[in-house]
């Protein structure tokens, strides 16, 4: 019998011990060994991070560990290099600096948003290797399998002397990151906005945290989910009316997620008016997986909404949320507890509907927000906007959609995945196209797959200003294509429709026009919105919503 080769079974722990010793030898142990002065953060990072480490830099499209990101980018690339970054979002200039300065070489992520163009350039110059573009849940999942961070750099609201952390309303990704890192021999460093003797509540226990540093200024939070009702157009009102009457009401959608944008903001603002008029209060939109959209305030105040669980918080909404603890998830201290991993899980498995928007859609219903020269990623949309085959509990909306898709004997239901778009974007760019830019992008980036955000076979309905296409009822690829062309308006794709076939689809209720739904175009006016300005939202909130200054124009 061959004796197994001797090996150490605690190399991660030993490595962790050496890293902490190096830090200690530099005098980097403040009170209780955890508090590090801000001016020594680079010394600390250079002491605990090793060449080739997997590093998670916390940041989503909301809160950002911006001080730690900038500090890491200022480290000496001769000492720290070949880092493999594993992080939700590439949002800050410093995130891209890591690659341009030679500190990091590989990236696994979910979303890049504003840095999409710089990222694409780095890929073309072969200065960055992209592992994969994930959804949030996939990336979190991989933190616990093959992408576990060696070092996590996170953002918290406050720390106490022991190193316990209070995350505040923007809990977001922190629990998932810290749990994976702290329990697999990793090092957790938190930047905090303040040090407190007594935390309002403990969100991360001290023994999961190695170092805390008081950031020179509070971590940045982007008000990403604030939509000014003043910018909602009448076409968006019309589309929102169609969605409410033709989808929400017909399926009795109670549990849902809304994507970000003015189209869905319009729906939120029609709940207290148009939906109430249709007698839908209590019958639709009661339970949400949603960031605290300010445009949801009128629906909450009107009694439409029973519960909202959030991925993160939204700037200015915290006092309102704290005062509506029946609706939002809040701690004993009163402030909200968000959690992206759980909210994404709710969006994937517990919601009956996702409705969102896209930049391009092809004739199979595939949609993509990737455009040439930009790598943007997906964030959470594919989790929300997909029919989960692992779902087993029934609900009326899910069953009805399932029977439409698979027939009356269906043994499974179907999530409603709705794409809501105007047929043209700004500058008359058509949303409906023969071929997505994603295919060209795949070739130019050398990627294994085209960056499709939502696959056509997951889409159940398309809403445009021209009407609603119900793809569940289509029985052949040809029907599907004509149903899509049939709502594609005056785009080249729409103009190339087979008119007779589209009329046939209309007779079968697969394509429906506003008049088929009994919608009066004269009602499609901004006057139907429950709030027509940010100031109206403040008024609805009883003065509790405090919008950021850029949204204040009074």
């Amino acid at each position, binding site marked *: 019998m061959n004796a197994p080769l001797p090996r150490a079974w605690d190399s991660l722990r030993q490595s962790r011990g050496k890293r902490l010793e190096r830090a200690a030898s530099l005098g980097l142990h403040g009170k209780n060994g955890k508090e590090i002065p801000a001016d020594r953060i680079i010394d600390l990072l250079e002491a605990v991070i090793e060449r080739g480490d997997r590093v998670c830099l916390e940041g989503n499209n909301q809160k950002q560990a911006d001080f730690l990101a900038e500090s890491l980018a200022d480290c000496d690339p001769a000492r720290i290099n070949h880092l493999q970054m594993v992080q939700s979002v590439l949002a800050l200039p410093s995130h891209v600096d890591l690659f341009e300065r030679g500190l990091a070489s590989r990236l696994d992520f979910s979303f890049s948003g504003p840095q999409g163009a710089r990222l694409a350039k780095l890929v073309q110059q072969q200065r960055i290797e992209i592992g994969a573009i994930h959804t949030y849940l996939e990336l979190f999942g991989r933190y616990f399998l093959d992408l576990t961070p060696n070092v996590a750099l996170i953002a918290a609201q406050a720390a106490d002397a022991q190193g316990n952390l209070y995350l505040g309303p923007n809990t977001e990704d922190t629990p998932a990151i810290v749990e994976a890192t702290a329990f697999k021999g990793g090092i957790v460093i938190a930047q905090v906005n303040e040090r407190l003797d007594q935390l309002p509540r403990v969100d991360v226990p001290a023994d999961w945290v190695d170092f805390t540093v008081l950031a020179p200024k509070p971590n940045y939070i982007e008000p990403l989910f604030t939509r000014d009702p003043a910018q909602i*157009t009448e*076409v968006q009102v019309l589309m929102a009316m169609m969605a409410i009457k033709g989808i929400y009401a017909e399926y009795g959608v109670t549990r849902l997620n809304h994507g970000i944008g003015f189209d869905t903001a319009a729906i939120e603002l029609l709940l207290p008016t148009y939906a109430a008029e249709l007698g839908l209060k209590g019958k639709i939109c009661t339970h949400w997986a949603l960031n605290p959209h300010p445009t949801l305030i009128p629906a909450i105040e009107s009694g439409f909404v029973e519960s909202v669980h959030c991925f993160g918080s939204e700037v200015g909404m915290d006092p309102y949320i704290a005062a509506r603890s029946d609706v939002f998830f809040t701690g004993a201290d009163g402030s909200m507890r968000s959690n992206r991993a759980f909210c994404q899980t709710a969006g994937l498995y517990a919601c009956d509907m996702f409705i969102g928007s896209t930049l391009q859609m092809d004739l199979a219903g595939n949609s993509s927000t990737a455009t040439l020269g930009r790598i943007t990623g997906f964030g959470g949309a594919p989790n929300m906007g997909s029919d989960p085959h692992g779902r087993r509990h029934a609900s009326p909306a899910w069953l009805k959609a399932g029977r439409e898709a698979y027939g009356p004997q269906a043994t499974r239901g179907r999530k409603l995945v709705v794409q809501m778009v105007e047929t043209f974007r700004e500058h*008359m760019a058509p949303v409906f196209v023969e071929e997505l830019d994603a295919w060209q992008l795949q070739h130019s980036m050398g990627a294994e797959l085209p960056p499709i955000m939502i696959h056509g076979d997951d889409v159940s309905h398309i809403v*445009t*200003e021209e009407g609603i296409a119900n793809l569940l009822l289509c029985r052949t690829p040809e029907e599907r294509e004509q149903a899509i062309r049939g709502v594609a308006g*005056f785009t080249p794709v729409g*103009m190339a429709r087979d008119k007779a076939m589209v009329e046939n689809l209309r007779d079968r209720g697969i394509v429906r026009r506003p008049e088929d739904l009994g919608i009066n*175009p004269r009602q499609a006016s901004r006057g139907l919105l429950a709030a027509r300005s940010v100031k109206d939202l403040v008024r609805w909130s009883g003065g509790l919503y405090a919008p950021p200054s850029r949204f204040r124009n009074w």
Partner: protein
Amino acid sequence: MEKLEFKFPSQALLAAAPPALCGVVGSGNLEILVRSGVDRQICEISVNTSARGFGETWRAVLATFAASQAVGGTSIAINDMGATPAVVSLRLAQALADYRGGAQ
């Protein structure tokens, strides 16, 4: 500015009515004036638009409108500041509803 003139056959609208004005001339928007026309089987439409080169799109949008609605016997004047087809179609539907409303 570009000026476009169209004539489409359309089912006769039952009654003539006082003129109806809908919309405003603002960026991405348009105003539409519907009046009674001369020929009961024809819808006449004149377009003043700030966006040049979209004649064929206008023709398609307006032809669809005239084919799907009974608008014979109307004369429609449009002042446009770069509205998308979506806005044009909605405004046309609103203007026609206003015009018909006036006839009742």
